[in-house]
């Protein structure tokens, strides 16, 4: 039983565990965010610099309208789905790591 206010010294409470944890989680989030943002932020630029291509008709829709009004949603679902699978897996591995170190110490 740790004394209130003091920080225990086992692996779970170590700087090493926290730093690794935060780094891996942040890397996953940033990768997903970057792939999403590069698409989202590229669209206005494409509209700006290549208006003819983006206005080309596809099934009646201007291409850019089809992208933004319809196709963007499934794309975001895909990124979210990948993130959730990876992050649940990541969490499971982190918990395993922490437990194995704990039992080693004990």
């Amino acid at each position, binding site marked *: 039983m740790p004394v209130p206010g003091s920080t225990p010294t086992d692996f779970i409470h170590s700087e090493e565990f926290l730093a690794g944890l935060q780094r891996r989680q942040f890397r996953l989030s940033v990768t997903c965010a970057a792939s999403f943002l590069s698409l989202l932020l590229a669209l206005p630029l494409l509209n700006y610099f290549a208006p003819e291509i983006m206005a080309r008709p596809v099934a009646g*829709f201007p291409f850019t309208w089809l992208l933004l*009004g319809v196709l963007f*949603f499934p794309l*975001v679902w895909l990124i979210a789905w990948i993130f959730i699978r990876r992050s649940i897996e990541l969490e499971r591995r982190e918990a395993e790591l922490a437990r194995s170190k704990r039992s080693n110490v004990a």
Partner: protein
Amino acid sequence: MLPPLFAAVDPWILALSMVTVAVTLVMGYWAAGKSRTASDFFVAGRGVSVGWNASAISGEYLSAASFMGVAGMVMSSGYDALWYPVCYACGYLFLLLFIAGPLRRFGAYTIPDFAEGRFDSPIFRKIAVIFVLFIGFFYTMPQMNGAGTALAYIFKDISWFGQTGLPYWVGVVVVGAVITLNVAIGGMKGITLVQAFQYWLKLFAISVPVFVLISLHGGYGKHLEANRPAATPAIATTATNPAAQDPAIQSPDGIRRELLPAKAPTDDVWLNPFGPLTTKAPRAANLSPEQSRPYALLYTYSLIIALVCGTAGLPHILVRFYTNPDGVAAKRTTMWVMILIGVFYVFPPVFGTVGRNLLPELYNATGSRGPDKVVLELPLILNRAHAPWGAILSGITCAGAFAAFMSTFSGLLVSMTGALAHDVYGRMLRPQSTPNERMRMFKWCAILVGGVATLLGCFVEKLQINFMVGQAFAIAAASYFPLLFMSVWWRGMTTRGAAAGMLVGGLCALVAVTLTNFSDLGWIDLKPFWIAHPLLRILCEQPAIWCVPLAISLMVLVSLATRAQVPADIRMKMLVLHAPETLGLKQEYVRDHDGH
């Protein structure tokens, strides 16, 4: 007295709307009988399943702006308005990636709880509470506008004290009173159930009329194609000739088009990016279309930042993550929310597109009598050939609109009332109050907040619903988003850094959008100034592009300057935020914290 008053009202529309209201109220009462403890009242006992919670979050999130405003804005502004639904949905991704998991692991009733727990600072709690109220009131205004618009539409033909049509403010007051009462009685448990139900009602109400409309009047793509000048050369000649025999035009695809009024944007401007919404300021300053384009690009980016970051910072949505049993469930919930709202958001732009072709007379009015009511009124055109189905479908969309502003307004009311009752009263004014006293206070606070929100709603008739929501998002993006994002991922944040960034960023955004609103409502005359400085007008109308970086850099700078004040147990706090919940660090943290 009643029969002559209601004789001019379509019975289908009235009946379906009233049934929605009645079901909402009955469910609220029914759930009220079940919520007894204070914990039930605030976060629904924390045991809501993924499916229920996802439906409820979606139900709460799909506001009058989504249901009525998006369609209205697509009709009035064309392509540029599509950024709204897309970013409303995509903002959830940011919430999922950076904020949902850690926040849930940290566990607290409200965002002010998180602010206080992360920084051990009761003062910071007060700042956070202020922003719950700021953002909340800003977000209730468009809901109230939707309510006023919908009731004015339903009762448009009645005579009332010598004038025709129900005044806008009556609708606002009636709906405001009904919802306030409902929240004061039911608490959040009622709301979870009601809002889950309302999501499905809204999806039904927006999709079924769209399917009927496009099966009878041509598909989404065809209606867009009819706006392409090359595809329908007949329009240009007929439109310039008002003496033409038939006021409607048949495009080569067989899409019927009514004549566009002079106030409507032209086809080319409407269909393509950088149209009326984003180029308003430079055009008012008499810049050429070519010169306006850079301004429009800037506007677009600022809008994207506001909507994406703002979603991640909306207080009434964040509080829902605490109602999940664990962090994995919180993530699954976000996934389902994105699917549910993404499916929904495909439909409103269809209303805007078809409405432009079939109901262009709405362009002649603004605010509650203009394009914002296209969702409600468009199905009525089916009555010309298929009565009474037009009225029935219009009744369905009215019911959906009621569900939309009722659910969002309830959610906001709960979160704002919770902030007042739980934080201001329970923690600041009377920390020794009993749970029963707080429950009673919750009811009084609900009435107070509901009353103020209703009053504010009465003033904004002329503003576009969607536009106002965009502004509420800009404030959230500049205050809560930087706070949450930085506190979760950067251990160097100090209380002063967080407070400085959040206050300055949020207040700058608030002042900027208030200035534009006041000048648009004609309360202060800034027109000459805006014409002279179109860039400043854009930066005030959509302030996220400078407020969000400002808030974040202030947080970093002030935190670095006050480095000594980083909380002593920051490593433990970061562990609780990031370590898997199965390790049980949260319980340990709470025990240690209560120990000193």
